[in-house]
Structure formats: C-alpha cells, structure tokens
C-alpha cells in the first residue's frame, strides 16, 4: 500500500489554524489530514505495536487540537505536530519502562566508534522488493532495535524527512548532536542490515521471486 502523504504546498495552514481557533473547529479534520500517516508511522517506530501506535497517534492529534492555541507559528505546524507525537510516544514508553529503566532522558553517550559491516560488493535491493513482508519486517525490526536517542533522530530525519534543523528543534538538541546521532544510526543500520540483506540478495532470486 502506498499512502500519499505529500504535503500540499498550497494550503495556508496558518490561516486554517486561525479559523479553527476562531471557532471553526471542524476544519481541524482537514488540517491534520496530510499528517495522519507520518504521525502513526513515527509512533509505530517507537511503541512497536500497531494498536498502541494508533493510540499514541490519536492522543497526539487530540493533544495538538487542545493545545492549538499554544502553537506560535515559529516552526511549521508539521514540526510542532511531530514533537507532540514524539512526546506522546515517550510518555508511553516511560510508563512501560518504570521497571526496566531504558533511559530516555539521560544524556546520550556519544563516545566510541561505530563501524560499518565490511562488504566487498553490494547488489542493489530494489524498492519493489518491499512487496515482501519479510523484508519489511526486517527493516522495521532494525529501526526498532536502535536505542531511543538514535531512533528518534533517524526516524525524524530519514523517514519523516525533516531537515537537520527541524529535527534539532523537534528534539530540543543541537544541530551537531543531530548530525552525530544520525551518522551513528545510519552506520548501525548498515551494520545490522547489510549482511542480512546480502544473504537474501537478488542473486538467489529471493527478493524478486514474487509475481
């Protein structure tokens, strides 16, 4: 399934928001339409469970509606929405992790080196191979297994396609932290995924054998 989530450029979101705040609340349905998918996808990469991701997404859209009056228009509405969704997902994780403390707020350790998986050649995996459930599952799992500080940056930048600056602002971290974490996240994914993908390379016809 391919979901169109391109942001329509012609929408005047500031005007829509002003109208909603002035009482035309139903317009909110239209305001958030382009972001339904991206907010869900972001939630899913954090909570790892479809039903819960849907819940997080709903909560985020509700919270954004209630807090709309606080939106200052300094960032894009989409960036603001993403940071609300992120907080919602974090809140959820924190609740779940009260016993098993996965530190979400502690300062990240950014020392140490991350090395890629060494390969001698790479055979391109075409996007059509994503029709295969096992490939999608492999990618989802690899993203989910990144630790939160890397996953956040990776998801915002490389999946939601925010700019470096927008990512930094959504996460309230510096631009250089975004760059460092992004680099590490990408290399960690390469290290994890490249050998697995290579094993199942089109050479053996596995990814392309579907009809």
């Amino acid at each position, binding site marked *: *399934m391919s979901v169109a989530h391109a942001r329509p450029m012609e929408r005047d979101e500031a005007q829509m928001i002003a109208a909603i705040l002035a009482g035309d609340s139903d317009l909110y349905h239209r305001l958030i339409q382009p972001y339904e*998918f991206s907010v869900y996808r972001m939630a899913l990469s954090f909570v790892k469970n479809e039903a819960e991701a849907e819940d997080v997404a709903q909560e985020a859209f509700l919270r954004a509606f209630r807090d709309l009056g606080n939106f200052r228009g300094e960032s894009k509405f989409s960036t603001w929405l993403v940071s609300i969704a992120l907080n919602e997902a974090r809140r959820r994780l924190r609740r779940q992790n009260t016993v098993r403390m996965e530190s979400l707020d502690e300062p990240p350790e950014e020392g140490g080196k991350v090395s*890629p998986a060494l390969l001698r050649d790479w055979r*391109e995996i075409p*996007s059509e191979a994503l029709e295969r459930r096992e490939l999608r599952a492999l990618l989802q799992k690899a993203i989910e297994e990144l630790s939160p500080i890397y996953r956040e940056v990776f998801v915002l930048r490389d*999946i939601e396609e925010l700019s470096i600056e927008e990512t930094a602002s959504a996460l309230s971290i510096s631009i250089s932290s975004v*760059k460092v974490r992004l*680099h590490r996240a990408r290399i960690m994914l390469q290290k994890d995924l*490249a050998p697995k993908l290579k094993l199942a390379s089109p050479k053996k016809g596995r990814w392309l054998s579907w009809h």
Partner: protein
Amino acid sequence: MALECKHVWDYISEFLDDSLPAEIKEQVQKHLENCEICSAILDSTRNILILTADDRVFELPAGYSERLHARLAREIRASNSRRPEKPRQDQD
C-alpha cells in the same frame, strides 16, 4: 593526504547528505574510486536509507483514518459544548 578507510566511514553520513566541505568530499570521492570495500559500504548504506524511507515499510492499519476522525469529531463536539458563548458586547 590520502584518507584511510576508517576515516572515510566517519564521513559517510555527510557524504550521503552532500554536506561535506568540498575539499573533504573530493578526498572521499578519490578514495571511493579505488576502494571497493568503502564503495560497497556507501552503496549499501544509501540503499538501506532508500528502503527504510519507503512508505511501504510501515503500513496504516485498516480503518485507522476513520477511527481517528471519529475520535476527533467527539473531541471537537465536546469542546464546542464547553466553549462558552461569546460574551455579547454591552447592550445598550
């Protein structure tokens, strides 16, 4: 000075974003021309980023949008009923 592989690895992310200073970018490019390992690392990383960014990796559950808008509609109705009528201007 020629770059070693491990230094090239440090630049992979920025190389992919095309945000390296011209001088370093050129050195990396030169290295890649002669190093099949670093080329394969770069190609695989680029390939993985394209795959993970694809909309098909995470799919929306059936009925997601309907459920979302139904819940929003309830919230909006509730907020409208909470909203006090606009205070009327002083009547003469």
